[in-house]
């Protein structure tokens, strides 16, 4: 009966099974790769926050079909991406293009970082430029007395 246990343990080593059934056939592995890269990158307009690879919406299905046809017709990736953007807008791509409308999105964080760095530098310089607090002669004498007394304690 020991072999059953061994078998059970061995089954834990099984690789996760790819459950997705790909209804499409490709002539080259390169086409399959392009197809998958594209549907991963395109966002489903109906079911937001899913790409068209994940979504079960009929529209996502139609768009996968269209991407497949275009890949098989040897359209370059950029053309397929443009095709979608021209119909569904920048929304369909998870990588928005750099243009005046998206400048804030792309460069905003760096600008904010720059501003904060400059502000921090100014603040630190100012703090260092401040003269150290002054104490007068009587205070200084008192201080050295206290310090002398306590250094004797330890």
């Amino acid at each position, binding site marked *: 009966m020991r072999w059953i246990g061994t078998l059970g343990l061995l089954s834990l080593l099984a690789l996760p099974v790819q459950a997705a059934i790909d209804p499409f056939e490709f002539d080259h592995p390169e086409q399959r790769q392009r197809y998958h890269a594209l549907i991963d990158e395109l966002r489903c307009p109906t079911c937001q926050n899913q790409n068209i690879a994940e979504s079960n919406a009929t529209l996502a299905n*139609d768009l996968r079909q269209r991407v497949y046809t275009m890949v098989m017709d040897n359209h370059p990736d950029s053309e397929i991406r443009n095709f979608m953007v*021209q119909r569904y807008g920048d929304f369909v791509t998870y990588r928005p293009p750099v243009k005046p409308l998206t400048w804030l999105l792309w460069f905003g964080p760096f600008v904010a970082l720059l501003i904060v760095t400059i502000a921090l530098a100014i603040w630190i310089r100012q703090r260092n430029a401040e003269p150290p607090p002054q104490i007068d002669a009587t205070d200084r004498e008192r201080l050295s007395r206290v310090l002398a007394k306590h250094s004797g304690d330890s």
Partner: protein
Amino acid sequence: MSPKRKRSLLLGLPLLGFVAVLVVLGSGLGRDPSLLPSVLIDRPLPEFQAQRLDDPEQWLSPADLHGDIALLNIWATWCPTCYQEHTFLNTLRERNVAIYGVNYKDDREAALNWLSQLGDPYRFNIDDPEGQLGIELGVYGAPETFLLDAQGTIRYRHVGALDEAVWEREFLPRIRQLEPQS
């Protein structure tokens, strides 16, 4: 600048930045994120060749929609909101609004039945059984209604049911702008 003023400026700037961020983010709060702007505004209707729903012998192209300021309504019998919207489309028809339809990813028989039972507000319907014209138009959910000018240029798109409120708020002002000044 006195140190005191400098200090208040240093403290004030982040506050100002914070308020700016609040305003920007706050303005987005009221918006419905599921409404996507159409990229086709002010562009001509995309090229297509499609059959007429009630007469498959007849092939339609964008030129068939030229001539009048018109609505292009994307609908299907499987779409509950389209059912809800249909009465208002009939009303618009009575007001002599030109409406063309795209029967989107639907069954021809079912669609013709629907029109004979609920009334037919359309000048004609374009049959789009595979949703190919839908993709050209960037349709992502029926019903959608496009406003076309007399040259067949897309002027506006509304996603969701058309009703009196939407009609008066979004469509009428645009139609008045498009109409030739007399």
